[in-house]
């Protein structure tokens, strides 16, 4: 039969499902803590001693909510670093394309999107960094701008695909890989923000 401590640890593990590695580690650590606390109780061994140990430990949801807030902070940092690196690589790739291509007369729209979507993403990121650092919308707009710029860049390079130098192709591959990573981080941030909001609401 599962005891009070076992039930508590299992529920804490469920609350921390946004980070399975953390859930695994913390479950072991908390179980050790609760068994130490229960054994120090005068009523040990008994269900009452376990119940008191769990009560002193606090609500699992409140503890999970604190971890979720920290997880959001870490995810925000990771996403902004990826955004910055993506911007630098996109800029370099754009310059390489401009040096190599002469496509102004061939297809007017792609170069415009390539340039102005990138500039718009930089503008939003600059404002977002100072005013809305934790805003999912800011990061999603930047992601959209960079995606549009990279897609237009690939269309440009595609027009001249035959004979494209290796460094232009590599830069485009780097852009695609980074936009994939950035999308992954933005989606992860969205999930963590949602989980944090739910835990905070329930914990109240």
């Amino acid at each position, binding site marked *: 039969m599962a005891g009070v401590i076992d039930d508590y640890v299992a529920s804490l593990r469920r609350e921390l499902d946004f980070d399975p590695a953390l859930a695994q580690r913390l479950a072991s650590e908390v179980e050790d*803590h609760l068994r130490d606390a229960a054994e120090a109780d005068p009523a040990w061994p008994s269900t009452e001693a376990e119940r008191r140990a769990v009560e002193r430990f*606090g609500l699992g949801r409140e503890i999970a909510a604190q971890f979720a807030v920290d997880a959001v902070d870490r995810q925000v940092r990771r996403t902004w670093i990826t955004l910055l690196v993506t911007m630098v690589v996109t800029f370099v790739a754009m310059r390489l394309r401009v040096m190599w291509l002469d496509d102004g007369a061939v297809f007017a729209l792609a170069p415009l999107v390539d340039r102005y979507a990138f500039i718009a993403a930089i503008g939003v990121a600059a404002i977002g960094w100072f005013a809305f650092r934790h805003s999912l919308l800011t990061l999603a707009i930047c992601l959209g701008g960079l995606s549009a710029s990279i897609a237009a860049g690939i269309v440009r390079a595609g027009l001249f695909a035959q004979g494209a130098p290796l460094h232009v192709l590599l830069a485009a591959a780097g852009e695609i890989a980074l936009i994939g990573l950035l999308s992954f981080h933005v989606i992860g941030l969205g999930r963590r923000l949602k989980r944090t909001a739910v835990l905070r609401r329930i914990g109240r």
Partner: protein
Amino acid sequence: MLGMEAEMLKGHLDAIVLAALEAGPAHGYAIIETIKSRSASTFDLPEGTVYPALHRLEQAGLLASAWMTPPNGRRRRVYSLTKAGSAALADRRKAWGRFAQAVDTLLTGGRAWPA
């Protein structure tokens, strides 16, 4: 009043955890016991509150941790201060000293600080 003290403690929990580990490595339960005994049970936070702080400090490189099993005991995760953690604790002590002195001056109506 205990609720107010607990709220005040939350803002300083990271520094308090660092201070509790100054004497040497310890696991979560021992850290809580140290905080309780040093504060004469004035700060009676839910014990689980210390784990997010430990994790945060470890992520920041101020603490290191490892699983350890004593000869006749249960396996436990033991935390210790890193060099950066010791430096951070010294900085927080200085900042706290300045802050506490300024607030004390304001609350007791003493002379302006710094003089």
